[in-house]
Structure formats: structure tokens, C-alpha cells
């Protein structure tokens, strides 16, 4: 494939796992994109999409573990995964720094996901050649 037809994608996921198909569809897209030689700038979780970064999801053993599958994909391919801090705090997704700041009883951010502001998404829209949104589809 010619280099000029290759894209540097940012994926924005706004649908939660187990309530929507969004994280699964996004993962299929991400795998297919890398397989065709495209690159992924980052993955940004927004709104209900932040639930994908929870370390506490425990689906039945015969169902796919979407947070674990996404975490493994991000680590294997060195792709940054960022959850929007405002979305995350509202929905009870925190790292150890936010746990301390808000004096919460626990933290539950799954590695290698990070928590950051919407500025990460703004930067991604500037750095990528395509930004693809995966919504809950309601």
C-alpha cells in the first residue's frame, strides 16, 4: 500500500462495554488497521466509554473480557489509552492520584490506561489523519 494512503488513527470510544458494542467494534477496527500497516496515535475513552478502563470488570468466564483484551492490545502495540478525567471521575473510575485527591476508598484504573483531560483529545485531533468515533448507537 502506498505510504500516502496510510493513516494515523485516533479512536474515540464513548460506549461502555457490556452495554454497547462500541469497545468490541473499536478493537476489531484497531486490529484491522494495524494489520494493514496503518498506525494508531491513541485511543481516547469519553463518556460511558471510560468503563472500558475499569480494573474491576469480572464478566463470566465464557464471555469476552473487553477491558483485558483492550489492555493487552494497547500494551502489545505500545498504543496510549487515555480516559477523560471528567467522564471518569463522574463514573467512579479513578487512579491512585485521584483516589488520594478525592479521599476515595479505592482506585480501579486498569493498566496501561491513563487518565487525562480533554486536551488529549484536542491534541489527538491535530496529530491524527483520521479520528474515528465508536458510539453506543442509542
Amino acid at each position, binding site marked *: 500500500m502506498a505510504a500516502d494512503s496510510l493513516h494515523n488513527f485516533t479512536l*474515540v470510544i*464513548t*460506549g461502555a462495554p457490556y452495554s454497547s458494542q462500541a469497545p468490541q467494534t473499536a478493537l476489531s477496527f484497531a486490529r484491522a488497521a494495524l494489520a494493514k500497516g496503518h498506525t494508531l496515535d491513541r485511543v481516547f475513552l*469519553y*463518556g*460511558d466509554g471510560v468503563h472500558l478502563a475499569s480494573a474491576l470488570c469480572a464478566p463470566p468466564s465464557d464471555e469476552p473480557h473487553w477491558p483485558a483484551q483492550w489492555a493487552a492490545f494497547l500494551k502489545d502495540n505500545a498504543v496510549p489509552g487515555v480516559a477523560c478525567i*471528567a*467522564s471518569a471521575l*463522574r463514573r467512579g473510575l479513578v487512579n491512585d492520584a485521584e483516589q488520594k485527591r478525592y479521599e476515595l476508598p479505592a482506585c480501579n484504573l486498569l493498566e496501561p490506561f491513563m487518565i487525562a*483531560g*480533554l*486536551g488529549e*483529545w*484536542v*491534541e489527538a*485531533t*491535530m496529530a491524527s489523519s483520521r*479520528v474515528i*468515533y465508536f*458510539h*453506543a448507537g*442509542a
Partner: protein
Amino acid sequence: MSTLMVIDQPPYGTWAGREALDMAFSLAAFDQSVTLLFTGSGVNWLRMSQQPGGVEQKSLEKNLSAAPVFGVEAIYADAAACARYGLTVENMIAGVAIASSSELLPKYTHTAFAG
């Protein structure tokens, strides 16, 4: 880069509209060109004198009146959606222009929805 942020879901039932507005304000804060388009049932965000205190939410009226200050270039409401929901310049909050979505869309390099 110019972004058209589209809000197509009604107010209060979900957080998607509010989170789309946060996205728009973030783009503006980083000096990126951004315009808001309310369409479909999303135009109901623009109805004047809403009192969402009863459901412990805030109306967009104050946020939207601050939009030009934050650098949001324009706020549009889709003409067909306004007709469908009985919205006119008389019963809409100030600072909103009525436009055709199909004419607006080609003018922007990015289009984004919150959910």
C-alpha cells in the same frame, strides 16, 4: 482544522449533549476552530426559559451565552428540526442561527458527536 460539534440528542435524559459541549469548549480553549450544530431532538436544548432544577440539572442557557467568549465561532440550529419541534427565533435562546445541516456539513474538516 475546523470542527463541527453535533448535538443530536435531547437534553437531560443523557449526558451526551453536555459532554459534547465540553468537547466544543475544549477545542475553543486550545484555539481550535469549533462550531456547534443542534439537530434532531437536540434542538430542544435551545428552548428558552427551561427550568431543569426539578431534575437537579443545569440548563445550557448560561453555558451557551458564554460560548462566544470562549471562542466558539457560531451556534446553529437545524432548520428542519426547529420546524419539527416548533422552535423559532422567538422561543429560542439568544445567539443561535437557524441553518440547513446539509449546507453546513461540507464546510468543516471534522465532525464530532459525543454519543
